[in-house]
């Protein structure tokens, strides 16, 4: 920024006359001016504005650093994250640093602020931000106002739960750091978490490809509906750019017809959202679900649909589940969608033609119960699985085939030394066995299962 523009801006926001600033700069530098603004003999009001600008500059620098920080070792995490805590604070604060697959910082989010002894952390909130950032790794961090960083039972509980959910969604928990008074506890340093900062997440390429494909699909559809040539819709993979395009199409397009088409689309979307809100469908029984699916998907046969609900059992959204997904990917698909839509629960519905509807098989039962266990990890309930055709109807809930999910219990942990670590191992093993069974059903043979068990025992 040239001096002239700088002076103009400074004068505009502080109300210090430009002539006064220029006069001062005849014998001083800009740095002198910023470090000793009192020398310019500004009024009290002008000085207040000047100090506001300085505070804004400091805050902005802090924000900017978020975009450059790379986490290569535990010390980096501690150095960066401990600066986010006020030592005198009497409240527990839980925050998460979201990283890409090279451990570069995407953003830091405060998930909750609690009381003197605890902060309430919902895995769904942590994972929602991770999915929004398209994060591949995360570092958890919270403070203990008591000054003692030794992790509590709840700390261990939430760490392990997030690790499990992270495994499902391909997001690694690199560390959980508890900040005390001038000291800290790192789960990774204490081998409670064993992930190498330098490892590249092998899933990232796959995900990048999926995002690129989604954007390609979006562009194709948009071009088809609006007749805007695809060459004018070049967004690469930047979601913010798409949002901006939809809001301010005139910045991207020159043809007025095309600009109006985008405005019309936005209007339709807004009206659709309103209608959806005004006429929210409430689900009270399996028959409500059947009727709803019959209405909405009347042209489809042999589909599996997930119906996502809010806490009042009103439908938030529905999604056809692609039929080629294996159980693990299906669980991931549903869980991601539920998290991003703030859904509290969901119902699986299979609309089938008569030839396909058989009695409930044990394989089907296992699949449904596994999906239920997995989504339960993030606090999302699978309420029911409904299979129906023209002449038949099965509700797992009605027939008692959906069991109440047992919450994974990490809280029975002793907190001292080796004993605690042994208990952690035991619980990990129990927990992993559940997930191993899940994987085995789909695509792993017994040999693989053995490997998984050995891996778990080693830890």
């Amino acid at each position, binding site marked *: 920024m040239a001096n002239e*523009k700088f002076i103009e801006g400074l004068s505009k926001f502080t109300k210090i006359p430009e002539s006064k600033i220029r006069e001062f700069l005849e014998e001083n530098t800009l740095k002198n001016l910023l*470090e000793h603004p009192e020398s310019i003999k500004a009024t009290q009001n002008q000085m207040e504005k000047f100090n506001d*600008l300085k505070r804004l500059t400091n805050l902005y620098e802090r924000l900017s650093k*978020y975009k450059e920080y790379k986490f290569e070792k535990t010390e980096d995490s501690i150095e960066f994250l401990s600066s986010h805590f006020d030592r005198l604070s009497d409240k527990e604060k839980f925050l998460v640093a979201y990283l890409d697959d090279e451990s570069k910082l995407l953003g830091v989010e405060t998930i909750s602020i609690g009381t003197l002894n605890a902060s309430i952390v919902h895995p769904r909130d942590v994972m929602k931000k991770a999915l929004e950032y398209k994060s591949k790794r995360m570092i958890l961090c919270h403070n203990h106002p008591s000054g003692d960083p030794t992790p509590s039972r709840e700390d261990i509980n939430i760490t392990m739960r997030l690790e499990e959910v992270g495994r499902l969604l391909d997001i690694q928990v690199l560390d959980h750091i508890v900040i005390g008074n001038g000291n800290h506890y790192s789960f990774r340093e204490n081998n409670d978490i064993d992930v190498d900062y330098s490892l590249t997440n092998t899933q990232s390429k796959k995900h990048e490809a999926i995002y690129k494909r989604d954007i390609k699909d979006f562009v194709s559809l948009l071009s088809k509906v609006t007749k805007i040539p695809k060459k004018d819709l070049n967004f690469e993979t930047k979601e913010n750019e798409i*949002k901006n395009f939809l809001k301010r199409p005139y910045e991207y397009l020159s043809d007025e017809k095309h600009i109006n088409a985008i405005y019309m689309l936005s209007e339709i979307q807004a009206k659709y959202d309103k209608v959806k809100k005004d006429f929210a469908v409430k689900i009270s029984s399996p028959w409500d679900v059947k009727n709803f699916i019959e209405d909405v998907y009347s042209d489809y046969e042999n589909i599996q649909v997930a119906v996502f609900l809010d806490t009042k*059992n009103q439908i938030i959204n529905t999604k056809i589940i692609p039929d080629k997904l294996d159980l693990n990917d299906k669980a991931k698909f549903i869980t991601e969608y539920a998290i991003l839509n703030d859904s509290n629960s969901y119902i699986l519905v299979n609309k089938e033609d008569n030839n396909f509807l058989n009695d409930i098989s044990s394989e089907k039962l296992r699949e449904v119960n596994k999906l239920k266990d997995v989504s339960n990890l993030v606090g999302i309930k699978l309420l*029911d699985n409904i299979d129906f055709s023209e002449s038949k109807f099965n509700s797992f809930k009605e027939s008692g085939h959906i069991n109440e999910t047992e919450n994974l219990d990490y809280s029975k942990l002793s907190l001292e030394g080796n004993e605690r670590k042994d208990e952690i191992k035991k619980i990990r093993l129990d927990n992993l066995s559940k997930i191993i069974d899940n994987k085995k059903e789909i695509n792993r043979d017994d040999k693989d299962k053995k490997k998984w068990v050995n891996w778990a025992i080693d830890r």
Partner: protein
Amino acid sequence: MLYEEGKDEDKTVFDEGITDEFLGIIESLLGKKLDLKFTSPTELFNFMNDPGAFLEDEEIIDEIKNLKDLISEMGDIFNG
């Protein structure tokens, strides 16, 4: 058989201190209420880089762009 409704969960409390302070200063410098609420520093950073994605008023958008240029320059001067 009826489905049970879920319990309303406690709302997550975000630490809005830094974002509120930042926005408060901007509003004070512009002399205008912006009617915005940011729940994370990252959102605020995006806002400064691209105010047009958050606001309609071209005049305010330009003022925020100018403000961003000014504080970036001030940061450079302070640091070196």
